[in-house]
């Protein structure tokens, strides 16, 4: 029993190798519905063609289902690690501290390529055509998910208990006063002076 099993496994491995070795000729005989396998929720479009409810059960819809793809959504330690990586990997150079610069703002509610954890993961790994570099292969999967968790925290998606504090170093006022300033921004005086 114990001696036969490895032999059988060896045959299976050879057969598999034979199949895999002919990469060019490889065929998928039963193709899964798109998006159902490893990357379940990379859905940037808001329109899903066809009758409602016709999606296979395996394709998650709705935020709760999407969130399960992120291992660190409410993990304070991972989010703070993500914040460190955000600086180290120079994300900060393009997106600032969430306000954006070369790249878009991340602290607002606008997501060009989708704001679910899986969307953000894909954006970081794959890059995007209008300038977002592809970091695939430059970071471990784990680190990407930490970055995802931090990026989402900028627009207050995870609960406040898990979010790190915003950087105060460039501020001249305490954060309580900044909240006030934010509120009065909309009605700043016409001569352009900023309420302090």
């Amino acid at each position: 029993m114990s001696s036969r099993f490895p032999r059988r496994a060896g045959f299976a491995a050879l057969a598999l190798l034979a199949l895999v070795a002919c990469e060019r000729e490889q065929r998928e005989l039963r193709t899964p519905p798109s998006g159902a396998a490893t990357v379940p929720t990379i859905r940037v479009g808001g329109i899903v063609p066809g009758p409602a409810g016709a999606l296979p059960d395996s394709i998650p819809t709705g935020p709760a289902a999407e969130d399960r793809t992120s291992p660190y959504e409410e993990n304070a330690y991972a989010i703070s690690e993500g914040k460190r990586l955000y600086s180290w990997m120079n994300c900060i150079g393009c997106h600032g501290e969430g306000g954006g610069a070369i790249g878009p703002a991340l602290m607002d509610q606008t997501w060009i390529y989708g704001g679910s954890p899986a969307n953000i993961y894909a954006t970081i790994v794959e890059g995007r055509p209008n300038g977002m570099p592809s970091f695939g292969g430059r970071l471990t999967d784990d680190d990407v998910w930490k970055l995802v968790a931090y990026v989402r925290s900028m627009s207050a998606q995870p609960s406040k208990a898990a979010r790190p504090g915003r950087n105060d170093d460039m501020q001249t006022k305490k954060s309580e006063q900044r909240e006030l300033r934010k509120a009065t921004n909309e009605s700043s005086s016409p001569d352009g002076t900023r309420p302090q």
Partner: protein
Amino acid sequence: MPAEDAGPRVSLIVRSVAVALALGFVAVPTSGQSPRDGDWPMASKDYANTRYSDLAEITADNVSTLRVAWTFSTGVVRGQEAAPLVVGSTMYIVTPYPNRLFALDLAQGGALKWTYDPKPQSSSQGVACCDVVNRGAAYSDGTIYFNTLDAHTVAVDAATGQEKWRTQMGDINIGESMTMAPLVVKDRVLVGVSGGEFGVRGWAAGLDAKTGEVAWRAYSTGPDKEVLIGPDFKPFYEMDRGKDLGVKTWPPGTWQIGGGTVWGFMAYDPELDLVYYGTGNPGPWAPHQREGDNKWTTGVFARRPGDGSARWFYQTGPHDLFDWDGINESILVTLKLGGQDRKVMLRPERNGFLYVIDRATGEVLSATPYGFVNAAKGVDLKSGRLQPVAEKEPQVNKVVRDICPAAPGAKDWNPSAWSPRTQLLYIPHNNLCMDFEEQGGNYIAGTPFVGAKVKFVKGRGGFGGLFTAWDPVKQQKAWELPDEFPVWSGALATAGDVVFYGTLSGYFRAVDARSGKVLWQFKAGSGIIGQPITYRGPDGQQYVAVLSGVGGWAGGVVSGDLDVRDSTAGNGWGTAAHDLPQRTTKGGTLYVFALP
């Protein structure tokens, strides 16, 4: 231009001269004036970078009646920094990314003649530090030359819009992009690279105008042979002399990612056969990561256009501390100084000083603050060195506050204009201070290499910018006009003694060149950061044109939809430009004005 154009052109000139005489204007000829004085063949109008036109139909007396003649939408709502070109009866405009080139028929009220689309890589938008701008094209000998954001130089037939050649000059994967307007000198197309915030090793290059082959490339850092420094290199100051300073004034190896990019306006003196251009900031911004003078960043080069060989260099900012690029334009003029005529260049520098430099030798004759400066004590004319103020020097992980001027300088890229009639330099510029925190940067090719956090605020007086008329002989301002925001447009001077500029909030203004009185203004669709020009149309009339479309570094808050709750948004503008989204929206429209 085709030969058949010569006839109508001559008659136009005759007609306009007759008009000028009839109206009693005195034509003041300037050196190097081409016969096509009604044209605008390069971004700065002429090799001396004056942006001064002899056209004098529009005057202080009649400018109040100026009205829109026609408009054109560029179809791109990003920062429009370009100068339109006018050659004969055609206008040429190059847009921000995707860098389309439009030819407009001036005889048909600006109707579109043709479009050339260079199709730059869309990923190049990710390596453009300060919006996806382009500063314009250059015309020479039937050809339009310009650069694309993905670092190609292209030549397009001015009559047909057919591509003549296209040369890849850089690689976006290491952060190289191109935004400057080329300068064409004889058979050389002179261009340079952008990307000082990406650890790019800066360079300028001369291409063969006929074939697009790279004749020379001169780096701004590294060994002398790659900087094209040879036996004829004679810098005026001791600090700029020595072998391989582009290597020795850096920590080992860091010159390879040291910046010194070339993206401003070049100038050319035909008598000395010297081309002048400035080099950008060293990288990263964090100064403790690059101890030393960081040659040949933040200074001005004089080179032979034919082979690129360096003749002199002067470093306006040895070991730059604050991103004070040396790329600002050099305006070549002759001034009466100490009783004799001196061939000088005027440089309104980012660091806040207006330099008058002997353009044959590189000797600084004077350097006077034209804006508020508290981060430098002055320029020591003996050593040529900028004198820093110790308490404003960056420290690692400490926020140093109230550094004036801010990183965009007392003036950024946006070019000044010189009127030989008033002998004044018209400077559109900033009134900004900043808080600066040095943190240190990681170099990852193709990503920003800055290593500092900055926050700009409006400067003394609570306003963001100024339009200043400067007397370089008296070394003082003649007058100035404050503005709510930094003045990020170019300036235009005319023989009608009217000067023009635009504001970030979208006003295009005509100002009396002598008194500074605002004579006329027009509210454009979007903020103005373009370079105004004037030209004589096929009907013999004088026109003024400017692109409206907010953006660039200062206007990126609007063009990039940034969130100003982050005070560092847009690499520093979250505070100083926080109210700009309440004043203007995105746009991309050419406005052309004429008298009724």
